[in-house]
């Protein structure tokens, strides 16, 4: 039976062509070089296509990410046959699979959103429809449409992988491709549509004067809780969900949810757990801004406005995703020698430090080479764009090109796969909770709460000690 890419990522053995950290470091340099070259060609305001308007570039960037998730996680790289995936040169695979992702991307944006929805459903998905309205210029018609389309992508980039990672494709996991892919696509797209309407549609509805009371809830229901009518409130937690789902999948190895034996309980716990963790991060990152920049003031601009701070929550979360993927893709998810909780804890600390360093370096230097403006809160500037663009390049490299050239892909033998599954089962068995584990949890929770308050206490002085933007 043709399996296409089902299980391909897990069943490939990447053999490093050099010892130690060299493959990872060289790959990182290569990826950054490709990132910068493609950034200049497509996104940079001084470059060739100058898509960073910002929303045009942002929209394509985000949907390209979703396209790759669809291809790899939902469709198992269907219709590409397993033998082609295993035998083709990584460059060939990279070019072909990237091209396919871009074609689907263009069909989705131009065909589905702009033509279908924009002409027969909601005008704000189509710039040409918006331009018919008095007072709306072509530039902002495009920006508004791109904003709406990219907001949909933000939701989709959370829910599409969530069904695969959290729900383990249940209850359709045994379906064949492409039926499985289309089923997962239909379900996750349907859910994304619902979430879009209850989180983002009202944002679009109040973009026009007068507010569109007849077609959207205005002012939005979250106004008092979020201290803003802006949909950035939702962008914040949804972005955190997007990030957490990949943390769970990579550096956390689904721990501790993988300790739950009951399938349905594990799946539901993980799906809800991702949202719960994301909300916790979401509220903390907002609080962190209050601790460093002072309380938000509704109606003001930049660092002090609640809407920007919610947006910045999502931006800060993205800074965590990059080191997590780097550690997972290029450094074999180091460390692996300890118990699972300790491995997870060490990776969490490493990637958090990496995120903080990346954040500081980004705001200190990005305006010198990305064509962006210095400062935290330029209203038309989104660090999510370069970060997601970098993630996209890494995904092309890792998913489509098997980390070439510093690694060589060799399919694992059936014995190796069986041994690996046995080892995973053994590790999980070793992690089964005991009474001592329970006592440890209790003590750890107390310590964790203490850690939280220590961080809260020192955060303002830590921030004050670092001159990020002079």
């Amino acid at each position, binding site marked *: 039976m043709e399996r296409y890419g089902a299980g391909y990522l897990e069943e490939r053995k990447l053999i490093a062509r050099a010892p130690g950290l060299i493959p990872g470091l060289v790959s990182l340099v290569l990826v950054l070089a490709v990132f910068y070259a493609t950034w200049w060609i497509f996104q940079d305001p001084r470059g060739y296509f100058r898509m960073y308007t910002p929303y045009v570039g942002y929209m394509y960037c985000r949907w390209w990410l979703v396209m790759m998730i669809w291809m790899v996680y939902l469709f198992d790289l269907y219709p590409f046959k397993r033998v082609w995936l295993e035998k083709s040169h990584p460059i060939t695979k990279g070019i072909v699979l990237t091209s396919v992702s871009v074609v689907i991307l263009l069909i989705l944006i131009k065909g589905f959103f702009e033509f279908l929805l924009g002409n027969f459903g909601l005008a704000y998905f189509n710039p040409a429809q918006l331009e018919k309205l008095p007072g709306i210029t072509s530039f902002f018609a495009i920006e508004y449409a791109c904003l709406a389309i990219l907001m949909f992508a933000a939701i989709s980039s959370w829910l599409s992988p969530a069904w695969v990672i959290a729900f383990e494709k249940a209850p359709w996991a045994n379906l064949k491709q492409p039926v499985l892919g289309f089923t997962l696509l239909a379900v996750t797209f349907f859910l994304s549509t619902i979430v879009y309407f209850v989180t983002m549609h009202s944002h679009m509805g109040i973009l026009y*004067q007068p507010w569109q009371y007849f077609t959207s809830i205005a002012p939005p229901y979250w106004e008092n809780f979020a201290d803003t009518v802006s949909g950035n409130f939702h962008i914040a937690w949804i972005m955190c969900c997007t990030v957490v789902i990949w943390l769970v999948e990579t550096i956390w190895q689904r721990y501790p949810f993988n300790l739950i034996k009951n399938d349905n309980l594990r799946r539901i716990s993980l799906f809800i757990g991702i949202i719960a963790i994301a909300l916790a*991060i979401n509220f903390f990152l907002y609080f962190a801004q209050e601790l460093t920049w002072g309380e938000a003031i509704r*109606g003001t601009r930049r660092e002090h406005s609640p809407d920007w701070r919610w947006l910045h929550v999502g931006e800060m979360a993205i800074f965590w995703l990059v080191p997590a993927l780097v550690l997972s893709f290029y450094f074999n998810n180091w460390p692996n020698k300890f118990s699972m909780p300790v491995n997870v804890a060490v990776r969490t600390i490493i990637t958090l430090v990496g995120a903080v360093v990346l954040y500081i370096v980004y705001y200190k230097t990005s305006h010198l080479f990305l064509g962006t*403006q*210095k400062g935290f809160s330029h209203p*038309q500037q989104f660090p999510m764009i370069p970060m997601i663009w970098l993630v996209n390049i890494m995904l092309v490299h890792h998913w489509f090109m098997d980390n070439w050239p510093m690694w060589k892909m060799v399919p694992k033998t059936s014995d190796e796969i069986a041994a690996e599954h046995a080892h995973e089962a053994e590790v999980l068995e070793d992690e089964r909770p005991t009474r001592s584990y329970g006592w440890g949890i209790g003590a750890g929770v107390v310590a*964790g709460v203490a850690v939280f308050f220590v961080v809260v206490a020192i955060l303002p002085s830590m921030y004050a000690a670092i001159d990020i933007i002079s």
Partner: protein
Amino acid sequence: MTTSFDRRTFLKGATTGVGLGVIGAMGLYSYSPLRKAHFPEVERKMTEIGTIKSLKVINISETSWFDNGILTGDIKHAGGLLVDQYLYNWPPFGNGKGLGKGSYEEGIAKIKQYLPHDLEKAWEIIEKECINVDNAGGFAALLEIEEMDGNKRKFLLDTGWSYKWMDECFKREGIDTMLRNGEIEALIISHEHFDHYWGLPVTLKYAPDIPIYIPEGFYKEGLQYIKDSGHTGQLTELKNGLNKIIPGVATYVFPVPIICRVFGEQSIYCNIKDKGLVSVTGCCHQGIIQFAETAYNELKYEKDNFYGIYGGLHISPFDDWDPKYDDLVISLANYDFDMIGCNHCTGLVCANKFIDAGYPVIQGTAQHRSKDTAYLGNGDTITFG
């Protein structure tokens, strides 16, 4: 499940528990009302800047550009709102290579020899080398300050964009004569944006030695332009924060990033005796509420009252909109301004929302190419005090 205590298992549980504890505390505490206990009490500095008797603002020009469609079309085709303003090939920095392919150096080289004495000749070259020359307008306002002893002092806030348009406006309002006679003490540049700053040679044509105040944050091109325009007077770069200018008048420099690669803006506080504080802005990219909050935290002003606003409030300059601007419209009520004189980058959509919300917006006459009576237009005046 074993019943004996195992240290290694305990530590594994503890490691997991730390994560749970941190995440739990983050989720339950971070956005709860309890978190407010961590915010330091902000003590008002109550810095004295003195008082003035009255302030009259003459709107020399608020039409920074004449057609939103043309300007945003340029922005769209050049690559969006982050493109460096000196690359557009907008007047006066044209090199004839077309939209988005300009540079300060190439543009200024073609006109430098004519600045500031022969702006007509410079403009002839600009018309050949730049794009959409006729769309350029500019923002400038004259501040007439009456001191407590009745003495009147004048300051120019910004100097517009198009040499041709600004010269017409200066002549219409008699600014040319005031500059020539030395009646205007100084030129205060709010920020480096094209529509507020690039008309500098028009001011220097009449008063090349006029003292100039700029905010910290100008790029090298902007600083060079002052020299290349033929300025011979004193240049003062005001640092971020409060800067007293004369008794009763101060500027405040905000280190804010702004579209088209500009950084930093200063706005003006005037403390009117027995009335309150008036905020005068060029574009107010920092936000009018930020400006008011800063005043509240930093200054002591009459009756602790926000008396008025004049200027561009940078809300919807292209008649674009965003829900965050609704936050501003809703929240402005908390500051209880007695008079709101807005124009330029406030945007027509916003001015109408202010009016609909019942704010005391001083309406204009829509003359000299200003578009609407919803706000103060070219040639209109407003007096505080």
